[in-house]
């Protein structure tokens, strides 16, 4: 045990070191890996606004708190199931970051697909986990990814055999217990799609409770040649939650990845979504909706790294900020010298619903090849007064007209969603979010 207690430690990252000493298990096969990550985290500290990548997002409130690693615990399914997406697919429920078999309904194993808990994998083959993490970690992982690595307890490992095409999505629910407060979870989802396989992964950060919690989630996806992964990330955590997400995707030849980043929840949320197109013909499509209300701060930083020739990317982000909400979008595109014939498109369109709302959007292009097509466009505006008048002149009341125009603005992201259950869920959330006030008739 360490002699440094939580209260005595001066800097926030040192307090996490104390928590690490207090919670670490002597028999943890990954101790070496974790400790190295922790030391990197302590050395780097929390990101600050002096770093270009964090210019618009201030983590001081997160840094001021110290969240203890959460305990996994049983949960009353009935109270939460209504928040989950019904019939979304093979369901896995992580409560406070830990797989709860009793709540999950993996059903019969689908051919070619293996689902393991990360804890099981770590216990049975720690060397394989260590090797995987070492191989997939970026040369310089971000500090908060290191924090996840130091503390992760559990997660999901999804392996697809060559040409496996399970006929239903894998639906992962990240759920907090109602009473959770001052705790953090560091779930890790690993997807390895072998050549020619296809799958749909739905990650649903369903939130709960009113306590202050810290979600620091990592999703790591490897897509082999000719394989396809469709990834939904529905973030609707409760307003006092800090949500940090890291998604790292690597694509080989002719592989395809699509992301659907739906950010509606948390008081402060930041997603780092990085894709690397390592093989010729690889394609990524990133769709996103950032919809802050109240005093929410929702930030998505995406990076598309074209590292091979004939790779393509298509990015469409929509921001809708209301009340005193703030949205941040940063779309980085790198075209490496070898990546000739790259075709990269980016569009960021944003809607401000009130004078107190703000959206900061920035394309960031680094192009080192000369035979490429890259386009980007960003707009920010308010609801179109003429369109509003047009709808009202047809008999629709102002609230309905506004709601319709807001919904129309999100439409291209909504229609990018394939699984009907997910699309219905999002439509319902948007209906609630921008609904008519009680008593107003349409």
């Amino acid at each position, binding site marked *: 045990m360490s002699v440094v207690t939580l209260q005595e430690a001066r800097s926030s990252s040192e307090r996490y070191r104390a928590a690490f000493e207090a919670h670490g298990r002597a028999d943890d096969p990954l101790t070496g890996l974790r400790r190295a990550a922790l030391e990197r985290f302590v050395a780097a500290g929390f990101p600050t606004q002096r770093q270009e990548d964090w210019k618009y997002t201030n983590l001081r409130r997160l840094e001021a708190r110290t969240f203890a690693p959460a305990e996994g615990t049983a949960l009353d399914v009935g109270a939460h199931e209504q928040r989950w997406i019904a019939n979304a697919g093979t369901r896995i429920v992580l409560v406070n970051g830990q797989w709860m078999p009793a709540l999950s309904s993996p059903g019969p194993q689908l051919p070619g697909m293996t689902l393991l808990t990360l804890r099981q994998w770590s216990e049975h083959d720690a060397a394989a986990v260590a090797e995987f993490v070492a191989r997939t970690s970026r040369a310089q992982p971000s500090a908060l990814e290191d924090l996840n690595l130091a503390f992760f307890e559990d997660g999901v490992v999804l392996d697809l055999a060559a040409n496996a095409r399970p006929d239903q999505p894998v639906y992962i629910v990240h759920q907090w217990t109602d009473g959770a407060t001052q705790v953090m979870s560091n779930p890790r989802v690993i997807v390895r799609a072998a050549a020619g396989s296809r799958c749909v992964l739905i990650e649903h950060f369903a939130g709960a409770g009113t306590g202050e919690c810290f979600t620091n989630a990592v999703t790591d996806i490897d897509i082999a040649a000719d394989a396809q992964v469709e990834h939904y990330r529905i973030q609707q955590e409760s307003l006092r939650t800090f949500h940090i997400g890291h998604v790292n995707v690597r694509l080989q030849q002719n592989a395809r990845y699509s992301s659907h980043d739906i950010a509606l929840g948390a008081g402060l949320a930041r997603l780092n979504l990085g894709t690397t197109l390592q093989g010729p013909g690889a394609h990524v499509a990133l769709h996103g909706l950032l919809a802050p209300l109240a005093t929410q701060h929702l930030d998505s930083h995406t990076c598309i790294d074209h590292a091979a020739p004939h790779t393509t990317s298509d990015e469409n982000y929509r921001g809708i900020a209301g009340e005193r909400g703030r949205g941040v979008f940063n779309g980085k595109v790198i075209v490496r010298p070898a990546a000739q014939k790259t075709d990269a498109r980016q569009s960021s369109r944003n809607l401000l619903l009130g004078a107190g709302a703000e959206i900061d959007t920035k394309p960031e292009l680094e192009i080192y090849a000369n035979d490429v097509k890259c386009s980007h466009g960003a707009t920010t505006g308010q609801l179109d007064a*003429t*369109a509003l*008048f047009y709808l009202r002149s*047809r*008999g629709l009341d102002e609230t309905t007209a506004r709601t319709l125009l807001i919904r129309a603005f999100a*439409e291209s992201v909504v229609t990018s969603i394939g699984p009907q259950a997910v699309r219905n869920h999002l439509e319902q959330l948007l209906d609630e979010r921008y609904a008519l006030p009680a008593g107003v008739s349409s």
Partner: protein
Amino acid sequence: MSMLKIENLHVRAGDKQVLKGLSLEVGAGEVHAIMGPNGSGKSTLVQVLAGREGYEVTGGSVRYQERDLLALPPEERARAGVFLAFQYPVEIPGVNNVYLLKAGLNALRKHRGLPELDAFEFLALVREKMKLMHMDESFLNRGVNEGFSGGEKKRNEILQMAVLEPALALLDETDSGLDIDALRVVANGVNSLRRADRAIVMVTHYQRLLEYIEPDRVHVLSGGRILKSGDKSLALELEKRGYDWVKQEAASA
């Protein structure tokens, strides 16, 4: 019966006085044409009548079916039977054309204490009206005016009018940007909607439209006021002689 009675209307847009004492009375069953040079206030008039924000009424009154029209928000005017066919219909991607029609019609019906139409009844109604406007059913499931040509947009306006069945229809430059075939379709649509209990006010630059939709009254609007009124022969005279003689006549009167 008086459908619309405008008395001494003064309207300002920003710091510009656009309407300066306009008076006009339109009875049920009548078709009126308002003509005038650019910038005379024609579009301002119909936009103010439909309830567009951004204009300040500084004097005068507007009675519609014995009610104070200017006191109502735009949606209540629509529900009470006022319809504006826009000069530049707005494209609204993401809002379905058929959805708008149905929501609008049901808002009107609800206001009048009528049951809402179900999807089946509504589609039957719209199909019938689309035939009238020579519109393909594929228009229904597109976004409102999204990617429509100029002519298609104007036809869509008259389709909406046919579905909503207003008591007072205001047509703002409905002929602009139409080729002769499209003009015929639009005019036939409007003519088929002439009824004893409906009034139509058309704003137009050109006499051409009036060859197809014959007005009962023609008014010359210039400098924010009605300078001269007459029957359809006035339109022909304007076509021949322009507007200056009307202005001179008014100045010397």
